[in-house]
């Protein structure tokens, strides 16, 4: 691994900014699920490409860390490759694609299939951190609703889903409540991943760059998906196994294979799929 490019401070961001971000992270960990405002910086990438996640990662990254970056579960997509290269260049840290080797995993919209361990940190890139935004456009009002724990409108949203579709049709960014207090947007992860956030051994940090918010779920914290008594939360299920590794445990992506309607379903978590296939060959 090449030494860090000395034209930049370690991990690109200056130390004072990192301190500011770390303070926000500490506050977020102290109040699980609460959105802490922070002075988000301009990053050398457009909003929506993970400017929040990258700032959180930069603030917590040390020279000994091993970084994994995934985009929709995959290590080899544009967003993941460019962020991984960014930190390899500006911090000189070791990078990996293996979930179990990484100390920090920055993710766009997936939680790895392999259970996370004590000491690992999962950093989410978040586009819209406010779960109440759909029903209440005023920021002043949503903050007051969080402060007073007035979360009835979240169920209005789920009610409307059932009224229109016969079941809760929200399949990603499915709202959760953290330790029976703050309602939180789990970022647009599929609801398939919601159960993994509950009682997770790893620290989960969420960064929203454009919206300037950081929030967190400390290790082993209760994360409950909102639902109705007669329409309980159900994670997405798949009819078929992964077409490559044959696993039934993972979240599947649909891949279009030609222009005549052929398609296949494969694991979205590439490391998980590779590991399964290697184990099958051995």
């Amino acid at each position: 691994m090449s030494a860090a490019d000395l034209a930049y401070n370690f991990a690109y961001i200056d130390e004072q900014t990192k301190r500011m971000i770390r303070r926000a992270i500490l506050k977020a960990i102290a109040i699980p699920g609460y959105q802490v405002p922070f002075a988000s910086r301009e990053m050398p990438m457009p909003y929506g490409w993970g400017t929040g996640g990258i700032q959180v990662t930069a603030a917590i990254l040390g020279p000994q860390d091993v970084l994994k970056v995934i985009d929709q579960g995959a290590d080899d997509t544009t967003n993941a490759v460019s962020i991984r290269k960014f930190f390899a260049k500006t911090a000189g840290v070791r990078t990996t694609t293996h979930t179990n080797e990484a100390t920090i995993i920055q993710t766009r919209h997936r939680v790895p299939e392999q259970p996370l361990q004590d000491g690992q940190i999962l950093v989410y890139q978040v586009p819209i951190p406010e779960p109440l935004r759909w029903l209440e456009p005023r920021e002043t009002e949503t903050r007051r609703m969080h402060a007073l724990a007035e979360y009835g409108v979240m169920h209005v949203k789920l009610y409307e889903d059932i009224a229109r579709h016969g079941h809760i049709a929200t399949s990603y960014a499915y709202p959760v409540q953290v330790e029976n207090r703050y309602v939180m947007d789990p970022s647009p992860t599929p609801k398939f991943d919601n159960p993994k956030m509950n009682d997770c051994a790893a620290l989960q940090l969420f960064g929203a760059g454009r919206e300037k918010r950081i929030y967190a779920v400390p290790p082993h914290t209760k994360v409950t998906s909102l639902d109705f008594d007669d329409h309980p939360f159900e994670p997405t299920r798949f009819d078929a196994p992964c077409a490559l590794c044959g696993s039934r445990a993972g979240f599947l992506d649909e891949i279009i294979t030609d222009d005549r309607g052929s398609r296949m379903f494969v694991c979205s978590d590439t490391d998980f799929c590779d590991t399964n296939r290697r184990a099958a060959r051995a």
Partner: protein
Amino acid sequence: MIDLAQERPLLVAEHLSKAYGTRRACRDVSLDIHEGEVLAIVGESGSGKTTLLQLLAGRLMPDAGHIFYEMRDGSRRDLHALSEAERRFLARTDWGYVHQDPAMGLRMGVSAGANIGERLMAVGARHYGRIRATAGDWLQRVEIEAARIEDLPSTYSGGMRQRLQIARNLVTKPRLIFMDEPTGGLDVSVQARLLDLLRGLVAELGLAVIIVTHDLAVARLLSHRMIVMRDGVVVETGLTDQVLDDPQDAYTQLLVASILPA
């Protein structure tokens, strides 16, 4: 008939004043309202009716004066001494607020059923089937076909929206409803039907209502007592029939005289 001497009033306002800059919208207004009573606040536009209603409903802070409310547990509380959480809880359980424009009081982007169910969900109802059944009941009570429960309020007519707004407020069985010109902007036959419905619900549920209107006919039809306002001051108060049949104040006489003969 309600025996006013028997019980303590539900809400008592003492010496309320509110100014917008140097313009005094409401000056030294005192009133009370008992359970099951309908009180009309009348006056021409700009007389301070709506300001008074918003003060009473806790939506505006008065510059001076106090409002006391008899809570469900029987304790008497100063509204402005309540915490914000308590006040908001009161406003969405024990109170209702019917806006002149239904779009202000409804969520136009979600179905009628969700509109009615919102208050139930806000106080912890978590059973979809029961919430929907209650919403269906209420739709029928306000004379809307149950088949329209999944429709958006934007597909409703003006009169239906207003009735939906009333149902949405009544679902938590409140004791006090504030209404700001509920019949404004509706045509005469729709108005008549709405007033009829309101009168029935008020009697059936024993609601206390404070209704702001510039329409004396509405006041005569619905209210037991009325307050006449002009330039932020109460110029006359009394039983509705008394005030309308034998107005004492010169301004009230003018108001009554300006009703077009039917």
